[in-house]
């Protein structure tokens, strides 16, 4: 049981928790949070694989680590856009939820 394997199990549970929260929680803000948990779990898995690929005097394989950095920044942009959308839905309809009352069949 090396530290890398321990964090691998942690990433597996994080992915499970994120997926569960994403499917079960009705509110979009909580879905966005669960999505970030899911993303963190995935990036942690990249980190574990990088750690196991440590060679040539490096603590870990730089290629997956670079992918994680790109992934984190993309995940942040996704969260920022999703939250901005949620706040605008909240301003327009007064309810920060996805199940809006069906719009009247207007033109």
């Amino acid at each position, binding site marked *: 049981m090396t530290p890398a394997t321990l964090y691998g199990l942690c990433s597996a549970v994080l*992915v499970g928790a*994120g997926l569960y929260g*994403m499917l079960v929680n009705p509110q*979009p803000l909580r*879905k*966005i949070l669960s*999505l970030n948990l*899911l*993303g963190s779990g*995935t990036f942690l*898995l*990249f980190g574990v*694989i990088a750690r*196991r*690929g440590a060679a040539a005097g490096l603590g870990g394989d730089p*290629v*997956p680590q670079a*992918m994680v950095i*790109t*992934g984190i920044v*993309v995940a942040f*942009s*996704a969260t920022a*856009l*999703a939250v901005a*959308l*949620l706040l*605008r*839905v909240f301003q*327009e*309809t007064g309810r920060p939820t*996805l199940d*809006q009352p069906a*719009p009247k*069949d207007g*033109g």
Partner: protein
Amino acid sequence: MIAAPALLVLAIMAPATGVVLAFAFGGRAAEWIAIATTVAGAAIAAGIAATLWSTGLPLRYVIGDWAPPLGIALRADGLSAIMLLTSAVVMGAVVLFARETFAQRPGAPETRTPLIFWTMLMGVWAGLNAVWLAGDLFTLYVALELLTFSAVPLVSLEGKPETLVAALRYMLFALVGSVLYLLGCALLYGGYGTLDLELLAHAVRAEPVTVLAAALMTAGLAAKTALFPLHLWLPPAHAGAPAAASALLSALVVKGSFILIVRLWFDALPGVAGAGAATLLAAMGAAAIICGSIVALRQARLKLMIAYSTVAQIGYLFFLFPLAGAAGHWSRIAWTGGMMQLVAHAVAKAAMFLAAGLIGEALGHDRIAGFAGLGRALPVVMLAFGLAGMSLMGLPPSGGFVAKAMLLTASVGEGQWWWAVVILIGGLLAAGYTFRVLAPALAGGPVPLVAPIPRSRQAIVLGLAVCALLLGLVPLRPSQLLEVGRPVAMAVSR
């Protein structure tokens, strides 16, 4: 002339440069930059396709001379060339169509909608070209994000509450899909130390890590392609977007993640997925065709009906996996049929959504019940709508017919006749929801037109519909261009 492989880079960088410049200058410049990018992009796509057609060999470009697995390689095979051309045609039509609705008045202060539309349009194109050309799974992930981040603002462009909710739901589905795809990439990198498609194809063995990775990635990409049980986000999103944007979304953006599944199963992990998985995917496709078409039949509003038709037509694409998997004559027919369905649906659906946009502008509403006598009021638009409907139905002189005929014969040829039955039912249902619109239009009755439609925009829609028709002239046999770069033993499932 620029060296052909360098064209691959320019195909991605031209729209990307357009996005950066539109951001920097904004205002009226965004529109002109978009038009220039359209012309350049079309030329580049034609150049790549011509080179592929003449040499018959796939093009490859290694970025910064760092060979994979360390670096990234761009690769254009027959499939990429076809999709590049389709993207250029549909993008050109959408840009010409949208010039009027999203024009920025000269001298007036910059407004929101035109800037966002033109910037996101180029973002979609950059994402699409990156999806067609990238040869590395992580670069394909970034290309998918490019597509998602430029499609979501297009859906919520008009700011109406239901479009904002549709955009949020679309984004949540797309992000879950992307993360599952990334999870699969992590497993593959852990197993084989590379994410390059060609290197993976040689290194991959059917072991647990590959099977779980393939399952996760296929599930994620199926969510982004709105395959039947995961299609809930598509209709409100594609119906809510402005006409030009929904044409782009339905015709091309949805196909981006589908092409990734094809790359995964046919290029990166040949022989990993069992026949069962391929049949499951095709079964979900069949369910999509039947349920999507039935729900489309019951829609009161035109754009929602067309959006559900997209959900249905996507189902046909998934017949590719059980049919085109094994090596042999019938699978090459199925492969060409599947790709024809991609192209024919793209052109026909774009024409249909643009026609719906014109109808919406002309009548002020898009309730099908109020279409009485539209045939006399807007003859050209209804003709275009009819021709596009023909392609969706699969009537002979149209691209849709060629695609469905090939899929039909391939499924019978390979002894899986049940897909053929579903294809026929799908054709009938498609005829149902198309005639449901044409019947009142050709019937009598006064139609109060709210706004006149300039003939130029009607001509664009008709042009696209005629393109869908001309695709019917493609011979019913495996096309050489599509075979370029295909591994000979295309055994997907043993």
